[in-house]
């Protein structure tokens, strides 16, 4: 009996339940404010918006789990998107564009990973510097003139549906399941958590922390490249600021999803919840017809409130 009541307490306190309650609550609020929003078609269009951030957040979650944070999201996404679009246009072959974007993803990951793992540069600074470099790379690559286009396959991926569900949402769910599996059921996942908790202990346990870190950054950057390609499919053309808005919001989504910003604790399922919550808030703000100024303020305030509700640290004690 006592054990049962204890379990309940744990459930009520768990991040999962809170996320679900918050999602349902926000969804109902948006539905009450604007009944159209309860329709499946609108749910789907919200999910489509979610899937770009969601795929970016796969990378962000992995990196935050290792105790870092990626501040190069903006131009990792933009640069790979530009490479995809431009290469596709120049060669006329979408697959070559895709391969080029993937290659860019791997190279970006190697660059960040080597800086963090081997040169021992703090992840946030390393990614900050990488962002600067990628920004220049984007401008140099495009020479200031954005050109390029999507391919039929990628556009279909972003715009067409299968049984009423858009392909890109399906892709997100598939990648999400793969990520959760990676974290929970593989030795690599174990190593990611270990590195995030204590690189020293991990090293002394005979785990090659450097390889783990490089691996994480490569996966993360490839995910950002995938998101960049999908965004091209969604928007139809590249854009210098297409990645900017994801920079900070990706960190917010991960943290709202219950992953510790200090690393070592959390998971991707929570992040998926965090992503959905962020877009539900956005849609409510749009319904309320709040100007952009107000939206930013409310956005920031809500993130703070959510975190105050459950993301608080322990009180200092000995």
């Amino acid at each position: 009996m006592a054990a049962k009541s204890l379990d309940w307490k744990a459930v009520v306190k768990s991040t999962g339940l809170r996320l679900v309650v918050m999602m349902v609550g926000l969804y109902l609020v948006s539905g009450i404010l604007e009944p159209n929003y309860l329709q499946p078609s609108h749910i789907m269009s919200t999910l489509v918006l979610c899937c770009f951030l969601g795929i970016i957040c796969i990378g962000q979650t992995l990196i935050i789990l290792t105790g870092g944070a990626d501040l190069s999201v903006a131009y990792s996404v933009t640069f790979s998107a530009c490479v995809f679009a431009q290469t596709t246009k120049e060669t006329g072959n979408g697959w070559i564009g895709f391969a080029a974007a993937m290659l860019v993803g791997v190279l970006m990951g190697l660059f960040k990973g080597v800086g963090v793992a081997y040169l021992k540069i703090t992840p946030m600074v390393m990614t900050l510097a990488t962002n600067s470099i990628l920004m220049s790379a984007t401008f140099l690559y495009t020479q200031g003139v954005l050109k390029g286009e999507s391919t039929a396959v990628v556009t279909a991926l972003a715009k067409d549906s299968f049984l009423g569900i858009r392909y890109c949402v399906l892709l997100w769910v598939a990648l999400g399941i793969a990520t959760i599996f990676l974290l929970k059921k593989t030795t690599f996942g174990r190593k990611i958590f270990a590195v995030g908790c204590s690189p020293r202990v991990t090293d002394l346990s005979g785990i090659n922390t450097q390889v783990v870190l490089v691996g994480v950054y490569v996966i993360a950057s490839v995910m950002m490249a995938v998101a960049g390609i999908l965004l091209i499919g969604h928007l139809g053309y590249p854009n210098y600021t297409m990645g900017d808005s994801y920079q900070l919001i990706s960190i917010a989504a991960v943290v709202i999803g219950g992953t510790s910003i200090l690393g070592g604790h959390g998971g991707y399922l929570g992040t998926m919840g965090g992503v959905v919550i962020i877009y539900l808030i956005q849609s409510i703000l749009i319904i309320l017809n709040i100007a952009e100024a107000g939206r930013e303020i409310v956005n920031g305030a809500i993130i703070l409130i959510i975190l105050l509700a459950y993301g608080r640290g322990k009180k200092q004690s000995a």
Partner: protein
Amino acid sequence: MKQIIEEGAAGAAPGQETMVPLIETAHISKRFGGIVALNDAQMKCYRGETHVLIGENGAGKSTMVKIICGVTARDSGDIYMEGQKIDINSAQDAQAHKIAAVFQELSLIQDLSVAENIFLANEPRNRFGRINFRQIYDKAQAFLQEIGLDLNPRVMVRNLTLCQMQLVEIAKALYKDPDVLILDEATSALGEKEVKWLFDMMHKLTKEQGKGILFISHRMDELRQVADRATIFRDARYVMTFPWGELEDEEIVEHISGKKSAETSLEKPKGSETETALELVNASKGTCLHNLNLKLKKGEILGIAGLSGHGQVELLHALFGDGEFDTGEIYVDGKQVRLRNEREALSHGIVLIPEDRKNDGLILSRSIGENITMMCLKSISNSGVLSGKKEKGVIADAVERMSIKVHSADLPVGSLSGGNQQKVVIAKALSTKAKIVLLSDPTRGIDIGTKTEIYHLMAQLTQEGYSIVFYSTEMSELLLLCNRVLVFYEGRIAAELEGDQVTEKNIITQSIGVGGGTNEK
């Protein structure tokens, strides 16, 4: 006043009931979540005495002193100082009542200098609140000289040895000129010379200046040297207070553990005469290890002794690939190998159980199971995918073999007591099936019961074909378990003692560099 001091100096003077204790706690209770750390506990310490608190890990000693110095908030109970009820809710409150403490875990700021650390939060200031740094250095210099420590106050703490850091920690507490000085495992990183310095200091404080000292240590020989009176805690409760010397060691152990102590004498494993598990030829590393030659026989426990900071820890870490040797040859089972990193060492069947279990050995926030399987991920997975069945098997084996007392292997390791944590560290290392085990001070700060279990385990392992290199800061352990002991002095092997040569006297003389050495060339 004077009279009180003299009476207090008499230690267990019969007239004590009539005296007012310098510091007294009554009916102290404290819970951490579901765990009761202290239950209606009490203690009294008089002026002029060194009062030792003894008990197993998790018995409540540390919690008690942390409550007295304000870093842990008590749930209920009262604290009295010289008969006056006082309220201590923060470290500042304790300081105001002239209570200072040195804790097991160091509380120094690595990137500040020695002097800045000594004055931390008590910096001398001028009228405008501006800190006078020159004064800090001058005063620190004078103070360090006065208490007889040879430390440069301008050096950054980061650049000190662990032993020196502990000394700075002690100096910091002493500088506050406390009436009550708390030393919680403060000797764990000190060498014998420094321990003697500390004990002299303590003697001066109590017997000459009439201060009170609360002392916690797991080393019986240290308690014997300093204790005036002792209070025993067991399972978060107060058991008894007695003048030191009134109880025999066995009786004390009985009260601590609540049961009769087992006789601890073991057959010393001598190891194989012919087979060598590990051999080191002319190995050197930087400034800390010079020209080491050693042979580890198969199935033996090779003791490593010496004052702390003479290269023992570096040797064990280097053998595990954590900081490679610069020169020299290493042979494992007769084959020459290189140990450039931990993974290479593991592949040659060498595993280290590090001395700092909280920072090097365990991830306290992750589960017991995850910690145990951390080093053997390959054996619990199929091509990178974890197998729940295999994992459960490995964990169950380890929990049973080490008799780790735990409800569920899913609990975080941090929720275990020190002794059980150490068992997890050992289980984790043994799960690798590596046959050469490097044990670096495995019994630091753990209770007597677990210590005995570890000794038996070590003896057992040698019979199963394991070979052990055993470094300990506690000489009695080496005397108990090792047929061969290498004594380190300034990064060299000063002597190799074998059989009857392994005596306390021999180890001490060699470790302070006056033995002439039997191994010098």
